[in-house]
């Protein structure tokens, strides 16, 4: 699409209205059975993540075990949805997770800044896919977006999508750098039109990350895209969601914005590392009626 066509996509978002809607979601009271179901759903939607310079094969393997066995002391727990690692650790994760159903996601395209050439980004993507990644989490070029070069962003996403082959593409907007909800909405629309399978808020390296107003704005973009094309796109808030209550309010937002079809890890994910243990602690509390100490939950 041309830059002018992409400029014409801009739609206004009223930030005050979005914040009011979010406040309303936060008044939802999730208790008893619904809470247990919601917590299990949240656990099953987590992309357990490690994205550090000091990551090693050993660290990744241990995290993969946690992904498959979140807390064996509790029966009937689902696994998490995926583990999310740098491309160099994909092979290790694929091997560790074999047969478990837990997906492997790799961040690519010069994550987290995205400041590199198209050639390098495509190569980065290819390395991840060739190593067996089921999903690729790319970052958009925020500098190009903010300078108004929307067609650059569109073309780049389309090119990476092609390089992904069968792997599902998550497009990270890094909303903390886009600054306005109007921009978040515009970037969401560009990403979906360019072929994103998921849109994702943040790298986790920039704050603010996945705030509820940002996530709602993106969910509403997904809804409009679905209305207009019939195509479902997934959503992944990432960064800043470390407590169960916030995760449940995110799920409330999904349920009341997009409906039942999105309430599955095929269409909704949490990018988080510390959320899993908080969810497990809440589930244990629901089962046993009291809170357990933090050291009863493994840190991987």
């Amino acid at each position, binding site marked *: 699409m041309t830059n002018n066509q992409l400029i014409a996509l801009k*739609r*206004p*978002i*009223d930030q*005050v*209205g*979005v914040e*009011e*809607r979010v406040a309303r979601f936060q*008044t*939802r*009271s*999730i*208790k*008893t*059975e*619904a*809470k247990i*179901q*919601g917590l299990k*759903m949240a656990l099953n939607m987590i992309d357990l993540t490690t994205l550090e310079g000091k990551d090693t094969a050993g660290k990744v393997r241990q995290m993969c075990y946690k992904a498959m066995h979140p807390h064996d002391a509790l029966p009937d727990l689902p696994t998490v949805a995926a583990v999310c690692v740098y491309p160099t650790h994909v092979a290790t994760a694929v091997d560790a997770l074999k047969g478990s159903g837990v997906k492997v996601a790799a961040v690519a395209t010069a994550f987290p800044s995205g400041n590199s050439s198209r050639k390098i980004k495509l190569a980065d993507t290819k390395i991840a896919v060739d190593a067996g990644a089921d999903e690729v989490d790319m970052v958009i070029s925020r500098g190009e977006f903010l300078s108004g070069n929307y067609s650059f962003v569109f073309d780049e996403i389309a090119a990476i999508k092609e390089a992904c082959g069968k792997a599902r593409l998550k497009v990270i907007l890094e909303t903390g750098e886009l600054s306005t909800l109007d921009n978040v909405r515009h970037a969401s629309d560009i990403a979906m039109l360019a072929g994103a399978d998921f849109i994702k808020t943040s790298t986790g390296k920039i704050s603010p990350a996945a705030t509820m107003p940002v996530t709602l704005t993106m969910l*509403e973009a997904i*809804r409009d895209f*679905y*209305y*207009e*094309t*019939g195509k479902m796109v997934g959503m992944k808030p990432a960064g800043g969601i470390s407590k169960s209550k916030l995760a449940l309010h995110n*799920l409330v937002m999904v*349920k*009341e914005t*997009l*409906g*039942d*079809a999105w*309430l599955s890890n095929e269409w909704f994910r949490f990018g988080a590392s510390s959320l899993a243990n908080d969810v497990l602690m809440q589930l244990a509390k629901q089962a046993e009626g009291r809170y357990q100490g933090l050291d009863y939950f493994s840190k991987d």
Partner: protein
Amino acid sequence: MAKKKETKLDFGSKWDYSAAPESAGHAEIKKEYGLYINGKFVKAEGGKKFASTSPSSEKHIAYFAEASNKDVDKAVKAARKAYNEVWGPMAPKERAKYIFRIARLMQERAREFAVLESIDGGKPIRESRDVDVPIAANHFFYYAGWADKLEYAFPGKTAKPVGVSGQIIPWNFPLLMAAWKIAPALACGNTVVLKPAETTPLTAMKLAELIHDSGLPAGVVNIVTGAGATGAAIVNHPDVDKVAFTGSTGVGKIIQKAIAGTNKTATLELGGKAANIIFDDAPTDQAVEGIINGIFFNQGHVCCAGSRLFVQENVKDIVIKKLKDRLSTLIVGDPMDKNTDVGAINSKEQLATINKYLKIGVEEGAEIYQPNCTLPKKGNWCKPTLFLEASQSHRIVQEEIFGPVLTVQTFRTIDEVIDKANNTPFGLSAGVWTDKGSKIFNLTTKLRAGIVWANTFNKFDPTSPFGGYKESGYGREGGLQGLSAYVKLN
């Protein structure tokens, strides 16, 4: 172009919220409430009483005394005496302390008031907890601040109290309306005889208990319960100086006639049929949310409800689609459940009125739409309703329904929508949804309504005046302007 596949979202039962009832155990309800006259709780002359029942569970709540002419006379006499001897002469900063105390006590007992408001009136606990009670307390805080600063409110003039104020309030916001009326009256040095609506007297009597606990001198605020006859006794009492009424336009007209030729002054806050106007350049999702809140807040029992939707024809399809989707996610039912969005219709009579209009709308040929929600078996309920393809000549567009019913009309140009929005005997409120600031200012100067909200709706704040044009009444409540009705200026 190939026809697109119809896409539909499924707001089903994959993850239903479990019941989350607010506990009511801490809220004490007496078997029987008397009248609050001259600082005492007394029985009505002859012991007449009436019952109040819950509109959601249909359970009996309590008995309330039915005030006769004699009781009202006693209350007015007590108010006069308190005005002459205590409240009128009191230093304004001392009056302020009492009003602050009422505000603080209301905050302390907020939960209890919220629970009782929902039991008695049927509104969702979320609203009574987050809207009614906090704003009621804020009104007392706000006007307490004015009590000793009236010379700044009316520079160059001396503001004296009016005297005894007779106040009659409706059933849609029982506690909040009591606060709207009592707070400015007290701040300006007036005394009060207040009558709550006969279907919702509970929080007014709780307020009487709170006022009693605050140590407010006897007779400054008197609260008498009863129906229309009690209200008439207040309006017609020769020693009442000022009448403040919120309710229907029909009763407002009767009051206007009754006080003609007397020295009484009045403020009337009456019905409405607000236009909510959405342009093609509006932020659609936020506008849809505002439209929903504009009409379904408090089951549509709101005089300023945005009950007439005008949608620009080129965005009609998407706006209606989103409205329908949003209706599917509204939770209708038990007012005491923290997740309930739409509660019970306040009374059997009001439900009958709403149902009458639903029938009229269908007969007039408007297309009715209601979501698939199950309603409780007991109680007064009405599904949130849209009437699509409505016309300016339909009665459902012209008359106030006072229920969860939204009529939807389309428009093409800005001049057309201004004409249609103003083409009503009412003029209380209006809403405008557009991303363009200049359009907002253009419309706000041309819409004949006392309140115009832009990119929001149903916002109430003690600092902001509220009141109508035309048959929606006169006088303003709230803000600096709200003081005017309760002072004589020299």
